[in-house]
């Protein structure tokens, strides 16, 4: 191989055909791209598109299954964080990698704070050094001696960024660096300084204006694959959002007439819900309606769903369930909510929904087990009859019932979880991303079950990370941004592009085709 004629021609990073799967889920598949010195490249994609996995692979946190990485032309196979760091790859993680009980100064210099000749860390010198580093990055208001846990989130994010930046890495990965940042200009200036020194930056963000501001080029991932690698200026916002959202060929949606019963009382009405991470949220779901909820990761959707069944404390607001004349002060427990006909299908199937060591039938019948018992002894035949009524609705084959649920595929497990919600005779289902990690066939079954449920007069609040599901299944869709309802879309305005731009905090409320945010009780 001939030597490169100029140093500048050697890319800082070359990614060749990298792939990573977790069990049955493909997180990354055959992703290749190149980063040049002094370049800021944007990395875009929806939730679950594989951005975080790519960052982790480059940072040495996960080892890819296939493909090769080259750093400055040399093969790069980091087995842990430290190896990546030593080779000049620094990362500001989205989830922040600061140890909250240690001081700012110690965190800044982890894992190898400067020591004196006796091998001891000199606190005072370390703190002075930390203050100097922070000041050099425009931070004068953080005391290096206090524990990180006492800093507000925005300050922690700044610290995380400075920690990745101050050692002048060859490659800097910034994963959603502005999620908790109020002063974005501060970051933009720093990124400018960093690339001036020849560092290459991979900038992961949902926010298009930041990408336009900082990046000349951007790479878009969808379902773990690279779908686009182009100059940002050549593309319109629409084009970028369309590429991010995409539409996979295999998933088809059968159009169905809306089953909304507008004359009835709302099945679930939330007024001015207020709590930590829930900012004044109001909405109403009618019987027969599927009300969608869209939002990028961490914009309050998880807390909203949990607060509706009492798993997340609320400070204020009212929750009313139709058919039940009494007004629930935000339900105090999932059990109370269930008794009132409100059932949550939670986010984490493995840890929150299934009982891994029980049989499938026991998993389904659990909430209604008294009804299948006489004198507190379980009657197997009655249990079976109770369960068989609902497994048809979710297309769960009966021969799975006696098996341990751990032996089932993710899709069938999810069907069992939904069957459990049906067995409890829910009137209003709260489905939190029910199709995550399930196969295409199971997705279709879940869609059918949802349609049948609302046709019979039920109501569904439906959060999904897959925007096409929201567009095709929902009658209306709320979009959450920064823990608030940023807007509500319905009819022709309910499109993936608009959902995504609203969820990214882009579109303004008075954009054409947009209903304003629902204010007050409907």
């Amino acid at each position, binding site marked *: 191989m001939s030597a490169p004629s100029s140093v500048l021609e050697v890319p800082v990073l070359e990614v060749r055909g990298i792939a990573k799967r977790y069990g049955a889920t493909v997180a990354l598949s055959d992703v290749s791209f190149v980063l040049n010195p002094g370049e800021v490249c944007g990395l875009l994609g929806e939730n679950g598109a594989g951005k975080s996995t790519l960052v982790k692979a480059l940072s040495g*946190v996960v080892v890819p299954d296939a493909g090769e990485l080259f750093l400055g032309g040399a093969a790069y196979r980091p087995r*842990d964080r*430290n190896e990546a760091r030593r080779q000049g790859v620094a990362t500001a993680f989205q989830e922040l990698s600061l*140890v909250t009980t240690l001081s700012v100064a*110690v965190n800044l210099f*982890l*894992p190898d*704070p400067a020591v004196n000749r006796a091998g001891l860390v000199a606190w005072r010198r370390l703190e002075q050094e930390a203050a100097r580093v922070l000041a050099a990055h425009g931070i004068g208001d953080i005391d290096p*001696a206090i524990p990180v846990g006492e800093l507000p989130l925005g300050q922690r994010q700044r610290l995380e960024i400075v920690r990745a930046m101050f050692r002048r890495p060859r490659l800097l990965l910034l994963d959603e660096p502005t999620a908790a940042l109020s002063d974005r200009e501060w970051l933009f200036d720093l990124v400018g300084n960093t690339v001036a020194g020849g560092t290459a930056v991979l900038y992961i963000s949902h926010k298009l204006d930041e990408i336009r501001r900082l990046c000349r080029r951007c790479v878009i991932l969808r379902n773990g694959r690279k779908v686009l690698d182009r100059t940002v200026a050549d593309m319109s916002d629409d084009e970028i959002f369309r590429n991010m959202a995409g539409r996979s060929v295999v998933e088809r949606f059968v159009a169905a007439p809306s089953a909304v019963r507008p004359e009835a009382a709302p099945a679930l009405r939330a007024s001015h819900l207020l709590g930590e991470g829930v900012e004044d949220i109001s909405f109403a779901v009618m019987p027969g309606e599927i009300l969608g909820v869209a939002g990028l990761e961490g914009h309050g959707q998880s807390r909203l769903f949990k607060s509706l069944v009492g798993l997340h404390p609320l400070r204020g607001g009212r929750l009313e369930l139709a058919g039940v004349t009494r007004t629930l002060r935000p339900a105090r427990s999932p059990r109370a909510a269930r008794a009132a006909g409100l059932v949550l299908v939670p986010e984490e199937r493995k840890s929150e929904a299934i009982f891994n060591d029980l049989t499938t039938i026991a998993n389904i019948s659990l909430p209604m087990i008294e009804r299948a018992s006489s004198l507190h002894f379980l009657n197997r035949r009655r249990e079976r009859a109770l369960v068989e009524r609902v497994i048809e609705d979710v297309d769960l084959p009966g021969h799975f019932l006696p098996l341990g649920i751990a032996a089932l595929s993710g899709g069938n497990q999810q069907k069992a979880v939904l069957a459990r919600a049906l067995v409890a005779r829910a009137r209003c289902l709260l489905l939190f991303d029910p199709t995550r990690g399930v196969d295409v066939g199971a997705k279709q079954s879940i869609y059918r079950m949802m349609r049948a449920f609302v046709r019979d007069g039920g109501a569904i609040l439906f959060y999904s990370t897959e925007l096409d599901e929201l567009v095709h299944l929902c009658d209306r869709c709320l979009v959450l941004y920064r823990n608030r309802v940023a807007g509500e879309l319905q009819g022709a305005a309910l499109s993936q592009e608009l959902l995504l731009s609203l969820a990214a905090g882009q579109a303004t409320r008075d954009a054409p085709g947009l209903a304003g945010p629902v204010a007050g009780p409907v």
Partner: protein
Amino acid sequence: MSALFERLRVAGGPAIAVVLYVLLFLVYASREASAFSVFGITNLLNDTVVLAVATAGLTLVVLAGEFDLSGIGVIAIANVVVATTSTGSAGWIGALVAVLAIGAVVGLLNGWLVAGLGLQSLAATIGTMIACEGVALMILAAPGGEVADVIANGLTGDIGGVLPVAAVIIAGVLVLWFLFARTRAGIGIYAVGSDENAARLSGVNARRTKLVAFVLSGMAYGLAGYLLSAETGSGDPRASNTFLLFMYAAVAIGGTSLMGGRGGVLGSVFGAGILTVMQKMLFALGAASFYTNVFSGMIMLIAIFVGNISTFLPRLQRRRAA
């Protein structure tokens, strides 16, 4: 001033343990005339030092976010090894080297099981504890043996009639701790125990850190067994059987979080001191022995409760101010 306060608080603030210790000691001293004499203090510290050293070791593993029940097994082995070898040609130095090595090996085994193989530390160290107790019985099946006089007398006496040897040992352990807490490994233990994932993402080698914690704690148990031999003057493979819960109680009373990442050895040493002085106090008050346990339990609950208040209060105040 406030920075100093912050640092004290972050360092684990064994202040409550110190206050409790002083209170209990004063009650004890009011009934026991010899409490303030060199003889009385030597006596008290001799009763404290074994638990204090063992607890200091346990604290390292607890700070790293793991459990370690193997301590009493190591103490048992060390005790019978000293009782069977210290009068031989290797002498007191040979026995000391032997018990430290034994502790290090058991710690290495624990560390390998937990950090290397990823086993749950509670289960793994129950296994090594039982195995160690078995080994101790193999070496010395029944109480007996003989501890060299140089150990039995040298470690339980005083220096020049003013300074108890046990005080020197405890001070030595504390000095070693304060030095260790300022090394990278010491900081790593806090980081890993506080948030293993964040520590790992920050580049801390979590496995090696835990291994270091287990090995150092094993050596401390070995030393504790050596000191126990000096106190009792003989070997007894079951002498340490009652220690385990007291070790954990001392760690908790001293303000170290059993979840890891918060606390320190200074608090644990005072925790061990509290458990010891309390027994003396109750004895001096003439309380029946079964009250001791009731009292120990109550002291532990008070210490944990007060300890939690002191970590919650500043947070509450800040929230109100915000």
